[in-house]
């Protein structure tokens, strides 16, 4: 789960990473008050999770409280790249000598945290990795031992700083690792880390992504399961299914992530357009299958529903009963293609055929049928 900037800033503050003074508000009046309190120039920043808000008008510099009020009024309630702005932060504007980059990520292939540091921050790190890879230092941290002082020193030195900033950078790196470790982060990033003319360092932006599997440890975030999700994704999540929206017209429902991906890919390779990815996992009973199928039947863009089940712990008769009930309850007139294979296949087939539905045996022929019904792209 990605945190909003203000949440990440609050965490940084608690862990001793310097952040410019700021207030989180949700009304223009609140923005004016905050600007008065902070005094001087402030930055108004829309609190959204999408990337690239700066270019989309989500970051503005205000010279006085009235300007802060004006920008806040513009931003609050507006949409930035399709995401509604409910909160903004009003943050003291910082004089910047140079922008630096710091982050801790998980390197999947070595299975360890990695510190990334660069003296050239403020740009997209992927972009920097392409154009100037020599400007990025990578330090692998042992996940059992954690960060060592020498590693923090080495990373700080790479930022091309002199004292007293050098010493401060070292502390920031250690504290950033503490955030990463304590919150089970997939990513903890400061970009940019500003070097001020006085030799101070301040985190101008804060990005933290938490591991969804560890959310239960943080009640302040785990109550909010549906952040960043569309209606269908949220509904599926409530049933413990994973759902991802695509832009075609053939709804895909399978058991198992790999099979679901392979099914949507097959539809595509055979000329069709998958509408979604819906993985009901292993062992789903009829009532859950019913809710999953209903979800796809409701979807306005879905014209054909393609159900591909390879039963192991999932029983084909349970799936068949779920499909029949979903059709009865929703009364939907959409086309359905079903492929059933595996545990209790004959029983599942009988249930569907009694309800005048066709069942196919092979994945390819079922995918072809779905494409034929949904139309080629």
């Amino acid at each position: 789960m990605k945190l909003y900037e203000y949440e990440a800033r609050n965490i940084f503050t608690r862990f001793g990473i310097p952040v410019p003074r700021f207030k989180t508000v949700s009304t223009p009046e609140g923005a004016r008050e905050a600007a008065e309190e902070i005094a001087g120039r402030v930055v108004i920043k829309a609190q959204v999770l999408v990337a690239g808000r700066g270019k989309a008008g989500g970051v503005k510099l205000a010279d006085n409280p009235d300007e802060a009020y004006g920008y806040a009024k513009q931003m609050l309630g507006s949409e930035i790249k399709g995401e509604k702005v409910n909160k903004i932060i009003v943050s003291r504007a910082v004089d910047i000598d140079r922008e630096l980059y710091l982050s801790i990520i998980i390197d999947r292939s070595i299975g360890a945290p990695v510190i990334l540091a660069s003296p050239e921050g403020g740009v997209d790190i992927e972009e920097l990795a392409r154009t100037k890879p020599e400007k990025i230092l990578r330090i692998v941290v042992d996940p059992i031992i954690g960060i060592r002082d020498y590693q923090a020193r080495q990373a700080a030195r790479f930022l091309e700083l002199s004292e007293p900033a050098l010493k401060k950078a070292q502390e920031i790196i250690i504290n950033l690792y503490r955030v990463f470790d304590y919150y089970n982060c997939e990513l903890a990033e400061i970009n940019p880390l500003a070097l001020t003319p006085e030799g101070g360092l301040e985190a101008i932006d804060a990005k933290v992504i938490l591991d969804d599997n560890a959310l239960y440890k943080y009640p302040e975030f785990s109550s909010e399961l549906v952040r960043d999700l569309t209606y269908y994704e949220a509904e599926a999540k409530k049933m413990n299914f994973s759902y991802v929206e695509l832009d075609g017209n053939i709804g895909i429902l399978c058991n198992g992530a790999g099979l679901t991906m392979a099914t949507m890919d097959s539809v595509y390779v055979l000329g069709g357009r998958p509408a979604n990815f819906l993985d009901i996992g292993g062992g789903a009973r009829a009532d859950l299958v019913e809710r999953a199928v209903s979800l796809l039947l409701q979807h306005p863009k879905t014209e054909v529903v393609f159900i591909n089940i390879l039963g192991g712990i999932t029983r084909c008769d349970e799936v068949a009963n779920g499909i029949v009930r979903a059709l009865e309850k929703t009364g939907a007139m959409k086309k359905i293609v079903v492929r059933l294979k595996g545990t209790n296949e004959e029983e599942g087939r009988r249930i569907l055929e009694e309800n005048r539905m066709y069942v196919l045996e092979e994945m390819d022929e079922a995918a072809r049928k779905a494409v034929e019904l949904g139309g080629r792209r």
Partner: protein
Amino acid sequence: MTVLIDSDTRVVVQGITGREGSFHTRAMLNYGTKILAGVTPGKGGTVVEGVPVYDNVMEAVRKHQELNTSIIFVPSRFAADAVYEAIDAGLDLIVVITEGIPVHETMRFVRYARLSGVTIIGPNCPGVISPEVSKVGIMPGHVFSKGRVGIVSRSGTLTYEIAYAMTKAGIGQSTSIGIGGDPVPGTSFIDALEMFREDEETVAVILIGEIGGDMEERAARYIIEQDYEKPVVAYIAGRTAPPGKRMGHAGAIISMGVGDATSKIKALKEAGVEVAELPSQIPELLKKVLKKAGR
């Protein structure tokens, strides 16, 4: 010969009294797997499916000294602890079925296992099967058949789909390893390719990858650098997956510009690997590469 598991494999089931643990204990016993003990803290002294249950792994190992393998069904919040217990009890192979373990915990126990010389399969995986020999996992045994092709895969049901297609085409498997769908697996594609390389019985390998990370690209580099002798056929799931979205598995996500299917397919093709467009094409491609290799 097979890899990882064979007729000497003796299994302890951690989390044996749970719903999944007991269900799959029965399925594994029916398949012929030699399960000597189960462990659930606080349930020592009971019996599940004829298997004696102990309070901890050390005790099970003391009573059954032939134990060398553990399969873990313990819920995600307690799974890491179960892994440490199995490592410290001196087992050689630990298969972690549990889904949803925080990746920070996985990083630590995978590292600890490596330092201890223990092999971990998973987490979030279907396990390992050597058809007609042993099954330490949750896969439906009947879709697999004994033969000479190794499978290594990041996914469960997709592996069953492909094994089913192979079996129908008369191509059997030596061992099928499900390394799991998490971002940090205990055993990687390269590890599995190395195991199959050493195994005389295995004449070809099927690699079933998916979006997320760069394990497939690394496997491709390994195949080139090591001049890998055995033909490899691959399938990569997720070519229609949008970036930034997690596709069911915790590890199936294209992030920070890394992990899309196109890059993986390209890397594998450059390493001389045949990449199937549809899972059903795998048997045909296998026959082609085996013929070319004169097997």
